[in-house]
């Protein structure tokens, strides 16, 4: 049964969605609530099911199992043109035979909106391209096409705006600029944005809430800071930025903290950042949380001693070190170049220290390489 749901409003609720293509489960029993008015990102590597999820929300695919609600309205099998949902397609999909004005007016005309001219001009001004109304899409640059694709969608004031890798085809500088602009436009028009991307930086810049997807399921969901500082799995720890994961065991309990033994050296970590299920853990520390010090310098907090600088790369705002530890692991350390102190040299014997609060703990049976081998540059999912 399909019916017109174009007046539906409210939170988007996916309930136990599964999408199968033959034997392959693109999306596997996924449940998710996207609050009205939020900027939500679905983040994951190619083939994680994020685009399939987006297409099911748009109505371009039907879930094999499960339901999709917009507010109170069940839209699981509603046709795309009967949903108050618009999409900014990857590579834009502008109509090549229509002018920019008619491209933007397309949805308005289908819905029989009265004052098409005024509405179109308003969004053309919002995306700052009113002078291009009479052109054809092929006469526009990539960045301009991107904004027109956005204008064509938001002019309809949908309950939900879907963005499918919208900035993937732009160069880095333009992408940064558009990230800020998109965020601003979302605040300006007050719509719910659902953004699909493989680019963790893009997701973190724009989204209020990020759901990290892997193999058809949501790995972890939360604010950018939550996900970054307190990842629950190795996949999230590696996919969002870099992590140092060190094997260890929980050896004690000290109020709000746990004491862990990492190759014979004791450290402490906050209980609420431990996601381990037994005593076997991986202690995780982000590279920029580490501090390096020479052996005779006093340090506080957690300390791992016996390191030796293996490699130094100076990259302007920071210096990146690889430090070989006695147990054979190489740790990555980012030091800000803000103290006027000359960088350490290759071969220096050093200690590594950090504030215990920055430690998180993952289950000891995790695959520590999960999420780190994916190449985020790959664009197309299917």
């Amino acid at each position, binding site marked *: 049964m399909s019916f017109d749901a*174009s007046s539906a409003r409210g939170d988007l609720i996916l309930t136990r969605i599964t999408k199968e293509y033959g034997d392959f489960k693109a999306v596997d029993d996924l449940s998710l609530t996207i609050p009205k008015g939020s900027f939500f990102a679905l983040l994951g590597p190619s083939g994680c099911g994020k685009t399939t999820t987006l297409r099911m929300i*748009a*109505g*371009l695919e039907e879930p094999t199992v499960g339901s999709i609600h917009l507010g109170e309205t069940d839209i699981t099998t509603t*046709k*795309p*043109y009967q949903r108050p*949902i*618009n*999409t900014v*397609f*990857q*590579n834009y*999909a*502008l*109509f*090549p*035979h229509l002018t920019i004005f008619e491209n933007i007016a*397309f*949805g308005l005309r*289908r*819905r029989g909106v009265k004052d098409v001219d005024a509405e179109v001009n308003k969004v053309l001004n919002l995306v700052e391209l009113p002078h291009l109304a009479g052109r054809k899409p092929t006469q526009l640059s990539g960045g301009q096409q991107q904004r027109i694709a956005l204008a*064509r*969608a938001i002019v*309809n004031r949908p309950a939900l705006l879907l963005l499918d890798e919208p900035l993937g085809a732009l160069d880095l500088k333009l992408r940064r600029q558009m990230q800020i602009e998109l965020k601003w436009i979302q605040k300006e028009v007050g719509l719910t944005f659902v953004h699909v991307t493989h680019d963790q930086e893009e997701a973190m810049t724009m989204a209020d809430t990020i759901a990290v997807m892997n193999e058809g399921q949501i790995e972890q969901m939360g604010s950018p800071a939550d996900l970054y500082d307190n990842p629950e799995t190795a996949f999230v720890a590696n996919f969002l930025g870099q992590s140092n994961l060190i094997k260890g065991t929980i050896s004690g309990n000290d109020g709000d903290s746990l004491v862990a033994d990492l190759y014979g050296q004791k450290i402490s970590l906050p209980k609420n950042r431990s996601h381990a299920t037994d005593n076997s853990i991986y202690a995780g520390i982000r590279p920029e949380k580490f501090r390096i010090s020479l052996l005779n310098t006093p340090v506080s907090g957690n300390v791992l001693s016996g390191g030796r600088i293996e490699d130094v790369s100076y990259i302007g705002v920071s210096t990146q070190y690889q430090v070989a530890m006695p147990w054979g692991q190489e740790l990555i350390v980012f030091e800000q170049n803000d103290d006027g102190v000359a960088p350490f040299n290759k071969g220096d014997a050093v200690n590594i220290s950090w504030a215990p609060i920055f430690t998180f703990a993952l289950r000891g049976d995790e695959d520590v390489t999960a999420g780190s081998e994916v190449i985020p540059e790959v664009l197309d999912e299917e």
Partner: protein
Amino acid sequence: MGKIRTPYLLLLPGFGFLFTFFILPILNLAQTSTQTPVGGGDTGQYEQTFRFQNYIDAFIENKEQFARSFIYAIIATVLALIISYPLAYAIAFKSGKYKNFLLVLVVAPFFTSFLLRTVAWKQILGEEGFVVPTLRSLGIISQSTTLTSTSFAVVMGMTYNFLPFMTLPLYASIDRIDPRTLEASGDLYANAFTTFRKVTLPLSMPGVVAGTLLTFIPAAGDYVNASILGSPNTKMIGNVIESRYFKIVDYPTAAALSFTLMAAILILVTIYIRKAGTEELV
């Protein structure tokens, strides 16, 4: 200077060919069209008298065949378009890994001779074929109705013979459409029919125009289908020209008819392209 001349040198073989085998014969044909029989001469002996009345005589005498040619050609073109569009659409968007195989099937009839295929239709529609008995037993046609030597057979033959000329340009045009623009149309509140009318059809117009021209032009001048599948009552202008040339040896009338046909096609095609090209068709 040498650099400027190079393109012209490259064009030379083409120009030479066209001049010898197109421009010269056309001029010769034009010259023939205003000739009259030599007084007291043999059959086939003509002299130049610049008798433009030849055109008017030829047209008045054969206006029925002219009209029939264009009506048959238009019907065949429309039928070919109706059959080809869904076919080309399906091959472009729905055929998956069978795409190339289906395209080969579309072209496959060209592997045998045009003449042979037309004769085959005579058998298909003949008394011994399966079509007539089937239609008769279903009561769709009466027991005495035959299909051969009818205008129906001629139009069917033309539709069949020119179908690939319609399908291939349509396919090329539809295949170039980005399927995401169709998804975008659905996303922007257009149902399947509106999407077809506002997006698919306008984007495939180059193919529609090319296909209809490639079908209509040869169909209007065709005489093979009418002579094999038709009767004296289904004569097209091509048949008249053929018999004037080769049977009656009336060169001036045949030449005048050829020019009139060319002019008529040219005018129709020009109007058509103008209409299809400049106006919003939907």
